[in-house]
């Protein structure tokens, strides 16, 4: 056949030309793999333990921030001397809602305004949103990453499976102070006496 990919095809009925065995094998195997991925993805939704589809609701920014402020007011922890617990130069409140409770977190330029405290193995309902522009919620070191947007309440239930100090980092560009957005979260286990040490760490757990 005297033509190449940059010359017109002289054969009249080229679409009836035989498909070689190599191509048949490859297309079959490749498509089978695509189907495996499809079945696996659907299966993971029903059987797997990590699915971020969640639910989302339209909210107003003010309404959402009010809820976050209420939560802080009701559930901010106090230390041994009765003072409200807060960390960092901007006094970010340390907040522990009752087990199974709702946690409201509206990221804003350029901070994570709540430091949540969670109990190991208990499920919490997180409401994630933004008070201004898009932010990226990146929970470290487990590397869970979600897109946060103003006007949307992203509802996900988290069940921590390891005590320790976790971090939030913003990984969606949100303005010139984007790189200032480091936040914090504690997972404690009161039953086994792994609790806050009041100095920004936890006893019995990692620093």
């Amino acid at each position, binding site marked *: *056949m005297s033509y*190449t*990919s940059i010359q*017109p095809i002289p054969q009249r009925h080229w679409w009836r030309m035989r498909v070689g065995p190599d191509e048949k094998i490859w297309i079959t195997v490749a498509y089978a793999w695509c189907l495996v991925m499809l079945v696996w993805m659907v299966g993971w939704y029903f059987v797997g333990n*990590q699915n971020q589809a969640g639910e989302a609701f339209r909210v107003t920014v003010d309404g959402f921030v009010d809820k976050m402020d209420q939560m802080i007011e009701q559930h901010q922890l106090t230390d041994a001397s009765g003072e409200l617990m807060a960390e*960092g130069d901007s006094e970010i409140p340390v907040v522990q809602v009752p087990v199974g409770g709702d946690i409201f977190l509206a990221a804003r330029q350029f901070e994570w305004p709540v430091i949540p405290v969670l109990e190991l193995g208990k499920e919490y309902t997180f409401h994630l949103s933004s008070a201004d522009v898009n932010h990226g919620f990146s929970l470290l070191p487990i590397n869970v*990453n979600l*897109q946060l947007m103003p006007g949307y309440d992203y509802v996900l239930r988290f069940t*921590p499976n390891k005590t320790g100090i976790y971090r939030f980092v913003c990984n969606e560009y949100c303005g010139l102070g984007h790189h200032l957005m480091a936040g914090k979260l504690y997972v404690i286990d009161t039953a086994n006496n792994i609790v806050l040490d009041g100095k920004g760490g936890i006893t019995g757990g990692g620093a």
Partner: protein
Amino acid sequence: MTTATLRNPQDFITCPDTGQNINKPVIALAKAHIFTAVVYLLAGGALGLLVALTRWPAIHLLPSELFYIALTGHGAAVLLFWCHIFEVGVAYYFCTSPINARLATPKIAWFSFWLMVVGSAMGTVMVLLGQATVMFSAYPPLKAHPLFYLGVILFAVGALIPMFIILATLIKAKNERTYEGSMPLATFGTLIYAIIAIFTWVMGAVIFIPTLLWSMGLISNIDPQMYRLVFWALAHSTQQVNICMHITIWYSLAAILFGARPLNEKVSRMAFVLYLFALQLGSVHHLLSDPGSSFTWRTFNTSYAGYLAVLGSLIHGLTVPGGIELAQRRRGLNNGLFEWLRKAPWGNPVFSGFFMSVVFFGFLGGITGVTMSNQQINMIIHNTAYVPGHFHGTVATGTTLAFMAFSFWFVPFITRTKLAAPKLANMSVWLFGMGMSVFAVFFMAAGHLGAPRRHWDITFADAALKFDFSATVHMLTTVAEIGAAIGGVGALFFIISILGTFMGKKVADGVSVVPQLAEPAGVVAARLHGGTEPHIKGLEVPGSLVLCMLLLTFLVVYYFAQFKYMATIWGIH
């Protein structure tokens, strides 16, 4: 080489080296587009280098604001302006020369060229002035200067018009019967490219016109989720446009260098058509970790639709190297699995760049892209350094490397000038290919450990709450950025060679600037076998099939490794 008799020969110049007929206006248009595109690669590459030298922890070159300006400029200049201006220039060639057609309405083509130039320049200037430090994605409510959006809109319109010119050219050629038989695969790929690009740039107008009005205060609110949906319908499709063109270039280079034809016309064309079906829906893989979409919707869009596009790419992954393999075997390089590949012209940057582009696009960009568009895995990757790692595997070592390789053939061909600085040209594809792959791999590794993308300082030195990544992350980032810097040098060598060629002197009559086109492999085989091309029993291209199976094995292992990790973290519902 030309079978049909040429109509309107006065409108054509016949290349003395290849015998190809080129429509005169196409020569000037292709030169203008490619020259402009390379200038954007220069600007964008320089900005990329500055970004890399800033993310390199030990150097940390730019202050924060300049870093974000440079990053916005890099994304826009290379992703939008370099790729798409280049493609239009090449597409004008593919829709005319292979079928002896004349370009419809060259005047309008010049008009759209200037629209692209003005629009892209306006956008770039606003970015460099610090008036649009919003990244190329420009998610509202972050706001840029109205002229930035206006620039993008002008560019999009300038990129849209050529697609209609391409369609008109093909219709006119058909009516004028400039060729016999069916259009070549290269032209068919260009047709699919044009159709996808029409959808793409219309989406650009749909999203950027309201955003422009909003930035001028005429509209009070742009819904951020709606923006991301339509924006990615634009920006994902721009990648599909890039892919269509670089695959068209792959097939063409296989024809130019080896006289290759597709293993099977129907299969290769279907693979292009799959891109067309899957295109709008596939863009949802950018929203998998966003609020507000159901499981069913995500699944439909990323699997049914996404996998059709994946299947298309996997097919090209066999048929492109397969075409080379078959052509080489027909020439007698028939020993073992890989003699055809070993004895390929590795010293010629047109081939080495081309083949690296095929391999890296599959092994770096492809495997990781398929994995991260699984909706659950997306959560452990979204917005981390993994993402730029992945797409430098697609758009840098895939698309850009293919364009570089093609330029080394195409620019001498249209300028009738010898390739300048051939030694630099030869080094450039290796430096760029290897450097960018190191960047891709190591940046992805850093992303697996949570390093964020688009980030000036992962030591958080000025943050209210202190935090620093592990030494491993800094080490991985360092290696990645060294790779990026090497890649940047490679890009620079390419630019020197190509701009040098543009500035060079036309050769005298009778001197050749590009080799003759390789004789069609089928003709060679027939001559070697006394008249007819022999029929192959069994596998035609075993070597390429082995390469593909290797790719699939990597993909399967990598895919399940991600799930294995994910199963160890918190429950998330």
